């Protein structure tokens, strides 16, 4: 269970990596390395041609992965291996269109059968109740995002259609490392925690060990994406780069 995996870690950090960069084989080895390095779970981002919620680093990662020949079919072939080689839950992050293309139900069922435990969809329809029910029936967590702009009424609605954990977006904006995170995050996270028993994890912008510690003072977990991909993308040994980068974030 994703929520248990987050709660069982002293420092629950969830790394995000773009699938298929430099290739699917390497992605599997990076997942393994991150699992060994102490990740609470791994978020596997599927590349998309038009990633409108992503900043320059993840846009580039998406672009390179597609150039390197990423396909859904290739992904599906690898998922089982990835799941069995890692001791932690794997979560898929994807824009909705590639999931929708073969059919939502088909794709999500496929993920579930391969052992994927949750999905994150940044451009979910505003009314995601139907999709939440579908995920519940399939038995896969639908992790929802709560933004700094989200009203209290909408927070309640989102949380009631969310499982696994609540993803608290730290900033107004797209993904990408930030040197400073807004003060309001702690208030936002506390407000969400008052509404739900689900773990609440903070993502977008986190890039230093200090920020990780700051966030973990009130949040149950932290997601690190752009900072990690930036460290991995142009390295000749991306597996080692991912491991080292992650260790720096969690070491005391």
């Amino acid at each position, binding site marked *: 269970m994703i929520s248990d995996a987050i709660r069982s870690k002293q420092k629950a950090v969830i790394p995000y990596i773009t699938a298929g960069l430099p290739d699917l084989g390497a992605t599997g080895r990076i997942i393994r390395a991150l699992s060994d390095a102490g990740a609470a779970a791994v978020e596997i981002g599927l590349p998309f041609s*038009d990633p409108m919620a992503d900043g320059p680093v993840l846009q580039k990662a998406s672009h390179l992965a597609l150039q390197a020949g990423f396909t859904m079919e290739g992904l599906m072939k690898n998922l089982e291996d990835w799941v069995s080689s890692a001791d932690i839950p794997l979560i898929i992050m994807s824009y909705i269109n590639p999931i929708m293309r073969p059919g939502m139900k088909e794709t999500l069922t496929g993920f579930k059968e391969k052992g994927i435990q949750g999905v994150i969809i*940044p451009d979910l329809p*505003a009314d995601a109740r139907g999709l939440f029910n579908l995920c519940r029936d399939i038995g896969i967590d639908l992790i929802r995002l709560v933004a700094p702009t989200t009203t209290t009424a909408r927070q309640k609605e989102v949380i009631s259609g969310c499982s696994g954990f609540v993803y608290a977006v730290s900033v107004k904006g797209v993904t990408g490392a930030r040197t400073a995170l807004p003060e309001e995050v702690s208030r936002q996270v506390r407000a969400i925690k008052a509404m739900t028993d689900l773990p609440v994890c903070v993502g977008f912008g986190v890039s230093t060990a200090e920020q990780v510690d700051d966030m973990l003072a009130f949040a149950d977990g932290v997601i690190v994406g752009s900072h990690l991909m930036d460290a991995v993308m142009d390295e000749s040994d991306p597996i080692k780069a991912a491991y080292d980068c992650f260790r720096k974030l969690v070491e005391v």
Partner: protein
Amino acid sequence: MKGYYGEFGGQYVPETLIPALDELERAVSCAFGDDIFWEEFSSFMRDYVGRPTPLTCAKRLSAHYGIDVWLKREDLNHTGSHKINNAIGQILLARRMKKERIIAETGAGQHGVATATVCALFGMPCAVYMGTEDIRRQHINVERMRLLGAEVVPVKSGTATLKDATSEAIRDWVTNVDSTYYLLGSAVGPHPYPYMVKMFQKIIGEEARSQVLDKTGKLPDAVIACVGGGSNAIGIFSAFIDDHVELIGVEAYGRGNGKNGASINFGIPGVLHGARSHLLQDENGQVLDTHSIAAGLDYPGVGPEHSYLSTIKRSGYRLVDDSQALAAFRLLNSLEGIAPALESSHAIGYLEQYAKEHGGTTVIVNLSGRGDKDIHTVLEEGL
């Protein structure tokens, strides 16, 4: 469900934008129910934009094809295209919403120019996102926007055309959502944009319908418009939707080699830029590269209402390629003394095929914009 046309439309956006769309929806419904808002809109249409635009009888073109062709002259609007109708409407709304800054995307630059114009008119800061490929081929409009005081932000990502400019505008909006109003230029995007843009463009159809009745005493057999995102087309179609009039959208077929902008003809329903509609995509759900000689039609998606109208067969969508559009550009220049935008040239370009099948009929073509911006491209192609 809210904001859907059949199975098309909706709001597929990052969570950060949901409250902004809610706020916009409230502002739209408040403004649209307010006579004062529409009076203000009408006075700008009349005294600033120069409406109503004429419905011109294209005598020599009609003789050439053996059908009666009427041109709805959106090219005569201030700034040279229908885009100004929507830009005026939305900036009036943005002012009501007390927004401080305007952003927009542009392909051909017509929407960018229209937006930069209304921002100058109301003294608001303006950033226009534009693909570097479009900056190259629509250079005159880039200079116009800069003269108007707008910042033109080059977008290099992806195919460096309209779709990437739109993604980048959305990224700006997510980042500056409190202060910024996103002035979207076509009948695309998340609800309420497709509805709102139609409401500002339907003036084209309302005028055309009463003008054609005045001049000919009857309704036309067909109304023809080019379709990029679909705003000029939905604007003119909307007034004829309950009539016995054929509605024909013309999509860009590019060079006919597989890369095109013909979403309804070749796309599969999918989600791009906040709405579900026909989308040019591959079997992995990745959005395909597009091509059209007309920058404003060089887009892999289409407005959700067009997807719906095509599904229920109320409107049909035909293909015109680059060279047919270029030929139409030349023809309208030489026969009528009118230089159409390359986008609008696609609608003109369809007449040849239509006339062959429907001799003796009467049609209205929406001449969505003027072609000054395209002279450079046409010359490059060898006029």
